[in-house]
């Protein structure tokens, strides 16, 4: 009786998907890295310390994995969630109360918290190993943008449940924007920007209004944050991640002593 696994791996379907058999020798282990779409992100060989957990803590990789988890669970959540003041809260209640939806929301929320933590830890290790030094200066800058976007992703998502916790956290957070110098209606220098005696910067034209789409956290804000959270920021993160990973390789792989 032929081995079942063998039969599957020998089948035409399997072979058409995986362009290469399970690699066991050196030559094939090299070829598999070159012929698999997902694996070609990696180099073929690498310095041993580049994969030492005690060196990289694997935190960049963990952050990336969490981003993928968030993307998948986020798409699933979008099926059950309508970003309107009328529905948002009740839809989240459904997610909590309907058993078949299980821990979808939990995974998404805790994954988001975890991602904030791991991105900090990743930055921490990159600093402590001095990996931002030449030639990796620019990749550090890309990283800082990623850090910023990660925080903004978390922040915009925080509003979506539309409960007391969400709305007031966003209110407190976005209240800062009204104190933006010159551009906030309670910011220093705001009075200096007048046109024919009329204030140019008011609570309907300042930085906070631009952020919230309204004078207070409301329907417009929910819509705005939803789009930022589900589309705009993830796209930005995806683009920056592509650059980030590409630069890791172009800068000579994971850093190490010269």
């Amino acid at each position, binding site marked *: 009786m032929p081995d079942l696994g063998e039969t599957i791996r020998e089948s035409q379907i399997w072979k058409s998907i995986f362009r290469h058999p399970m690699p066991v020798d050196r030559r094939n282990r090299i070829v598999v890295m070159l012929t698999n779409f997902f694996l070609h992100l990696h180099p073929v060989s690498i310095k041993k310390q580049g994969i030492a957990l005690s060196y990289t803590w694997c935190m960049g990789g963990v952050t990336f994995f969490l981003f993928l988890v968030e993307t998948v669970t986020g798409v699933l959540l979008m099926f059950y969630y309508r970003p309107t003041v009328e529905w948002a809260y009740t839809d989240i209640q459904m997610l909590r109360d309907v058993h078949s939806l299980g821990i979808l929301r939990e995974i998404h929320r805790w994954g988001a918290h975890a991602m904030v933590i791991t991105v*900090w830890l990743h930055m921490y290790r990159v600093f402590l190993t001095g990996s931002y030094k030449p030639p990796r200066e620019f990749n550090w800058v890309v990283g800082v943008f990623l850090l910023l976007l990660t925080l903004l992703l978390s922040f915009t998502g925080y509003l979506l449940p539309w409960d007391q916790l969400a709305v007031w956290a966003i209110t407190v957070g976005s209240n800062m924007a009204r104190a933006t110098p010159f551009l*906030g209606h309670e910011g220093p220098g705001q009075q200096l920007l007048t046109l024919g005696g009329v204030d140019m910067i008011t609570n309907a034209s300042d930085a906070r209004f631009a952020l919230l789409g309204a004078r207070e956290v409301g329907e417009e804000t929910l819509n705005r944050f939803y789009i930022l959270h589900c589309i705009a920021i993830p796209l930005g993160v995806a683009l920056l991640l592509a650059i980030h990973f590409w630069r890791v390789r172009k800068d000579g792989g994971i850093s190490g002593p010269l």
Partner: protein
Amino acid sequence: MHGLSELQFQDLVSSFLGPYYIALALMNGLAALYLWRSGQTKAWFNLPGSIGGKRVAITNVVVWLLVAMVFAVLAAIAGSGNTSIASLPEWLREAINNSTGPVVYSVGSSAVLIILYLFRGFFVRPAIAWAIWNLMWLFLGLSMTDPDFYDIVAKPDNVPIVMLVFLLAFFTWLATYRAVINDERIANGEPPLEKLDDEKILVWPDLVYTELICMIALTAFLIFWAIALPAPLEEAASSVKTPNPSKAPWYFLGLQEMLVYYDPWMAGVVLPSMIVAGLMAIPYLDFNKKGNGYYTIKERQFSYIVFQFGFLEMWITLIVLGTLLRGPNWNFFGPYEHWDAHKVEALNNVNLSEYVWQRGLNMSLPGALSFSDMPWIPLPAWLTAFLNPFLQFFSLLFGRELPGTLLVLGYFIALPPVMALTVFRGFYQRMGFIRFMIMANLLLFMASLPIKMVLRWVFQLKYLIAIPEFFFNF
């Protein structure tokens, strides 16, 4: 706990603490097993006397096994509902509550970090670090039986902060441990540890399999977390019921804590922008070529200290303070103190201009100039209307607020050249004018927060420059 009777609370806590202490017992048991199997058994001290002519040594393995036993006993006690035995004594909690405040907390955490840094050679030793690690968990476990402590720490959105603290403790240990070893090796003319792993290996299977295992472990962990802790959902949003305290998400609470010392335009806009800009500038300011690609402290002491001060002290400790210790009306509450919304704290902070004019010179505060007081200036009305706010602002800045303005200008403008000529002479020569000025200003901005804190604590100073008329308080 809200709406829980004492009995229900005990049930809740003991159902948590049972598994908690068992996990800690297992952790120590595994550590002992690891030490024993990998032949790292070490005799720490000998028992007095001897058995059958042989001296009996207490080894590290035995010690960690004993610790595991202690945790197992605690698991039995706390898990069976006797939470009052497995908790910190009442007087100790009282004492901690009464002796802590923003000052003690901030100064204390700085002192701890400085001690850890100075004596890192001692603290990174695995046995010492492991003991501290155990004590941290023990402290958390013993504190959990306090309803007020539990209330804050077990709030679902605060759980990540506890994790953050433990993860940071672990990784800071790991990095420092390797840095200490590397610094010794470098002093002996040997290459750093990282150099030993210089050989090339194939990504398949080593890296790909590591990644796979990481992903599986992480997925398991996330699922466990998601099952154990339901995501919070409070009442539906209401724009009239303001919660007290109203807090931003935890990762921004360092900024919210800064609001105690700064106005929103600084704490919420300028300083965060400076943090981001400063982070991006790091690779372009740090001209030290050493310490690239391995853990070291000695070879890059300056950048290390600056970063750790900014990250661990100014960012992380402020987040912990803002999340766990700030209650209603943003008052400070000890870790075991009930969050009483009626607690009043006297706030009688004084501006520098009030100190100088009113208390120092016994005068009233000078006012602002305005073109309407000066009809003899021959300017068209539309122009004076446009210029009036400028005149008012600058006459306040250089009139009423002159003392603070001079101090602040001196701090940001006069200090950098002085730094360049004295302590930072070598930096200045290697960095050039522009890079040095940027670094100096970033450092001064960073240092301004602790300076303002100290001024507040010691002199009740509110603002150095207070022009609320123009929302310009510094």
